[in-house]
């Protein structure tokens, strides 16, 4: 199908962008790479009255290190972050997740923040952001605010983004020495939506497991140490606490089983990588 019609604006400044979003309210949408939004337009699942293209805003097209955070602007394409020279040192979890994330052909256009804004429950970037304890930087004409990623995702393709607001950047905590990171996924093919994806962080304070593809948003859980007696019970409880659903790709039961097995493997790998 073809998109329904919409007005189009390609602003040169952030002020102009925010003014247009404020005026457009719920009828206005930001477009960056378009790899999540254009399919929604084509299928007419999204019918905005106005699209605001932010790719000409140079300040949004940067990857910056600020203190212990890596700040990825709203105009940074996934392929640009993938090719960022410090990726494996500063964001090893993302380096492990990238091969699973869309295809070469969609990463070339799609942005990091666009994937976060789209909030697909099985998407790799929201999962990584939540597992690392990152934040989302939001901006409207009136205010600037930061929301913890775990609070930003509120449901199936639903986020805390308010009317007139846009994502300005996402903030990933930089890797700390002595911390292990791992990412695993089961999908039909690389690039397809995950049936289940797991991300894990292991550090002094313990283990953290992020899970996508099961509940209606990425979820993250703390876990006791791997050799802890309680470990198996804990991961089993997590599997049951998620709202697993049956769909054409997998049954809810299979998804829970993947959470136990893949979750355990991912945590083990993260623990091994601690060095």
């Amino acid at each position, binding site marked *: *199908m*073809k*998109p*329904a*019609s*919409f*007005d*189009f*604006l*390609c*602003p*040169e400044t952030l002020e102009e962008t925010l003014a*247009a979003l404020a005026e457009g309210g719920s009828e206005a949408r930001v*477009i960056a790479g*378009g*790899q999540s939004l*254009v*399919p929604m*337009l*084509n*299928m007419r699942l999204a019918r905005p*009255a*106005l*699209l605001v*293209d932010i*790719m000409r805003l140079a300040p949004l097209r940067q990857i910056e290190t600020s203190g212990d955070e890596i700040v990825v602007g709203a105009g940074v394409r996934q*392929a640009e972050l993938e090719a960022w020279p410090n990726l494996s040192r500063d964001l090893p979890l993302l380096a492990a997740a990238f*091969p699973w994330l869309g*295809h*070469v*052909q*969609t990463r*070339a*256009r799609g942005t990091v923040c666009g994937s976060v804004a789209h909030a697909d429950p099985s998407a790799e970037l929201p999962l990584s952001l939540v597992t690392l304890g990152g934040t989302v930087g939001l901006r409207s004409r009136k205010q600037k605010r930061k929301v913890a990623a775990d609070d930003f995702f509120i449901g199936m393709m639903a986020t805390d983004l308010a009317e007139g607001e846009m994502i300005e950047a996402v903030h990933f905590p930089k890797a700390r020495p002595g911390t292990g990171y791992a990412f695993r996924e089961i999908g039909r*093919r*690389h*690039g397809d939506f995950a049936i289940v994806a797991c991300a894990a962080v292991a550090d002094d304070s313990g283990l953290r497991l992020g899970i996508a593809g099961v509940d209606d948003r990425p979820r993250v859980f703390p876990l006791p140490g791997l050799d802890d007696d309680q470990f198996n019970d804990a991961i089993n409880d997590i599997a049951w606490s998620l709202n697993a659903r049956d769909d054409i790709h997998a049954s809810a039961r299979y998804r829970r089983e993947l959470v136990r097995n893949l979750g355990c493997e991912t945590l083990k790998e993260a623990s091994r990588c601690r060095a």
Partner: protein
Amino acid sequence: MPRMNAAQRHVVDFTLNGRNVRAQAENRMLLSDLLRHEIGLTGTHVGCEHGVCGACTVQIDGKPARACLTLAQQVRGSDVRTVEALSPDPAELSPLQAAFRRHYGLQCGFCTPGILMSLDALLREQPDAGMEDIREHLSGHLCRCTGYATIVEAALSAAEEQRKEEIPNA
């Protein structure tokens, strides 16, 4: 840049296969439709129109991208290449196309233009591309005829040929 009204067509200036092009498009027009219906380059195919099959793959600023997931207005000022640009002479095949022919890398040919554009970009960026890289690039494409094996063979053969040419007498 003023707000562009939904009801009108608007100018899109870009480079297409090495030439400057000025086209007209409604905001809602996809790049795939601009190429096929407005400009008449029907080599770019449209399968699913939501980013799944890869038939519509073209190169935007040197990188393979889905034309069906790109609005015509988004390529303003960009450099777009389509399958029509692969061979300078319409009567001849490019080395990559010739390899597809030699290895039976196509049957119905519906998926082929997209696959060629992805592989062409890969072989340009990574002349030493091997099996893994080729498969990774092909994972963004669906072919319902060949079973992919002959496509991989064709790509490996084109890569090898290209490497030989780059090191003369080797």
